[in-house]
């Protein structure tokens, strides 16, 4: 059997026209389900897009946040956390450097005192 014959078989099978009354009923029920689903505001509810803003002209519920706003919030949070991290790192480095300076100063002052003491003891020996 070739492809043409198989395709022709599908073409020959006529699909009857849908019943208009049934079509209207199904559409009505589907619309009711759609409205109920979008007003529930659960996790499965449709999310508001920019297009919907243009069409509806209003925002409906906290769950329907514009995706652009969400992206902006995420980036603001990231930048703020990065700035905080850099600030904490800078302060920590400064504290470490200060403590190292103090230590160096202490050691150097100690070593000069030791030298003086050593010189004094030598003099005494002579």
């Amino acid at each position, binding site marked *: 059997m070739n492809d043409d014959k198989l395709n022709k078989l599908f073409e020959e099978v006529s699909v009857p026209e849908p019943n208009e009354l049934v079509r209207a009923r199904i559409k009505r029920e*589907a619309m009711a389900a759609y409205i109920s689903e979008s007003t529930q505001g659960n996790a499965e509810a449709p999310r508001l897009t920019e297009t919907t803003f243009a069409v*509806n002209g209003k925002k409906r519920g906290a769950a329907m946040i514009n995706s652009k706003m969400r992206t902006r919030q995420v980036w603001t949070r990231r930048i703020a956390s990065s700035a905080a991290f850099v600030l904490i790192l800078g302060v920590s480095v400064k504290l470490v450097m200060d403590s190292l300076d103090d230590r160096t100063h202490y050691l150097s002052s100690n070593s000069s005192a030791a030298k003086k003491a050593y010189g004094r003891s030598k003099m005494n020996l002579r």
Partner: protein
Amino acid sequence: MTAETVIAAAVGGDKKAFAELLEGQYNRIYRFAYRWCGNVPDAEDVTQLACMKLAKSIGQFRGHSTFSTWLYRLVVNCAKDWQKSQSRHLSEQALTDDIAVLHSGNEATVLLNQVLKQEDAMGEGFKESPLLVLAEGFSHKEAADLLGVQESTISWRIHEMRQRLAVLESPPGVGEIR
């Protein structure tokens, strides 16, 4: 409004857009359901299931695939669910359906129903593959993406259908179904 705008608005919760979308897709859903079931009352049941499912889950459409692919996946799943729920009654109704099909007087319908019935008996996925490719015009690759199988699997299933059709068309005793 363009088709994309209507879909985006319906995803976003616009009632008018959803009504327009449903109006545009109803015939497509019904046509597939009819070819799947082979009779009008069952096709209407599957269409109703699919439309309700569409209403409830359109908000989850993220545009990862085309809307058409997404919709067909939804309709195929609804048809399968319906078939599972009806499996107990199918054997009782099979004879009645066959008689109804014979009374329709369309030889092609009778033949196609016989082939699809045999395809369906072969296992999951055998019935929807030829329906998507041969009746709805999807390419093998598109049908494979839609059903989540390899492209070669679709080709093989179509080949199997050709074999069965050839056997059904040949005189008794000439061919034998593998």
